[in-house]
């Protein structure tokens, strides 16, 4: 059993390593995510930054905008995960070689590291450029980690579904809406709680529970989506 688990993990690790090797050589997702995040960051900081709105109003609005920046950056870069495989016709070799669950986890890990890297770059810059003060930094880090995991899992699953469709962009938006809506509502509420130092009625475990549900659903659905 342990031998099976270790070979499964090695398979997932191979997919993860392959994704990053290709990414470092093309810089497609990194460039897309970084450019989109930078552009929106500058726009938001100019219009709603220290000079744009009152501090009290900003504290209420800025957490929402942070998650909008993260969501749209993710939507611009992450769906390529599986679309690229179909467009370059490498999906056939993958289908004939990889265990679906290991493939899903390898891709998910890659997307997760991308999202976390994006958050590490965007969030401090966002806080500085908007002069947003965070009363509970620990809570903010927890929310970003859990929310980022949800974004990565949801994007990976939806990317697999849309990869074989014709109008990929439209389908991604349609399918993402019900998946990301509860996640973003929770994440925004918790981020607002971190800013004001009062998480209110929503707790991080609720977000983690949603992440876990998404992951289980992804692992169960992926083999059906990926294979005929």
């Amino acid at each position, binding site marked *: 059993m342990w031998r099976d688990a270790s070979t499964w993990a090695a398979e997932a690790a*191979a*997919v993860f390593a392959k994704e990053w090797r290709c990414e470092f050589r093309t810089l497609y997702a990194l460039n897309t995510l970084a450019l989109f995040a930078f552009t929106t960051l500058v726009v938001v900081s100019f219009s709603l930054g220290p000079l744009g709105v009152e501090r009290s109003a900003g504290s209420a609005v800025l957490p929402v905008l942070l998650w909008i920046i993260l969501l749209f950056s993710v939507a611009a870069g992450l769906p390529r995960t599986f679309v690229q495989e179909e467009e370059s016709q490498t999906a056939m*070799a*993958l289908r*004939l070689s990889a265990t679906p669950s290991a493939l899903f986890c390898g891709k998910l890990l890659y997307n997760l590291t991308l999202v976390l890297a994006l958050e590490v770059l965007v969030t401090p810059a966002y806080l500085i450029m908007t002069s947003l003060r965070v009363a509970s930094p620990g809570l903010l880090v927890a929310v970003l980690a859990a929310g980022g995991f949800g974004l990565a899992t949801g994007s990976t699953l939806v990317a697999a579904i849309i990869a074989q469709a014709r109008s990929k962009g439209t389908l991604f938006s349609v399918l993402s809406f019900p998946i990301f809506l509860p996640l973003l509502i929770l994440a925004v509420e918790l981020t607002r709680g971190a800013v004001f130092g009062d998480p209110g009625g929503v707790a991080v475990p609720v977000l983690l529970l949603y992440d876990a549900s998404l992951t289980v659903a992804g692992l169960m659905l992926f083999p059906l989506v990926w294979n005929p």
Partner: protein
Amino acid sequence: MLTPPRGRGSRRPPLAGRHRKDGSPPTLQGGAAGGHCGYISPVLQLRFENVRRRFGRLSVLQGVTGGVGPGELLAVTGPNGSGKSTLLRCLSGLLAPDGGTIEYRENGHPLDAAARRRRVGVVAPDLAFYGEMTVGENLEFFARLRRMPPDRGLAVLDRLQLPLDRMASALSSGMRQRLRWGWALLHSPRLLLLDEPFQNFDAAGERIARELLAEHLAGGGAAVVANPSTLELDDVAGRLDLGR
């Protein structure tokens, strides 16, 4: 030309290939039809019966029947669009047939579509590799996915004279075909599904590929070869003509 497997004086009757279409007679050429329904190979056996597949309103496969056993080669021919590639995709487990049965056994154990996908060796024109990685990196990646040591299959790669340090995107079409062969044989599959296996090869490449196929059959493996025209192949157990 393929060299017939040696040391098998009394060959088993080869499994048949035939195409049922609107009650038309089977188009089997060569090999023997029928007479082995109860035969179960100790090593491997592929049998498919009445396989049907549609794409929307277009019926591509309309009840195809055939099979191969150890050391046998089934040649599938037919014009473009006759369903050769679709049949091979169904056999490999990449496509689910709309009807009919596909049964593949190794060592007497039946393998479902998911297991079949990972066991068979496939060469197909639309099989591509990662252009951002070298040939060696590509093969190492797929060896890891197949849970094999990364140096497995190096002898085959050496024979195919693949430039391991060249980026896959920089390969010529002939070299890409060699890479497909190297990839298909990487895990020493018992069943090879070859769709236009000699396309784009130069004379040397085709000779190497034919030798590899002959050795595969001599070692007790089986192969299904699809090509628009009749290939000059020795030791063909059965021919399946999908011509419309």
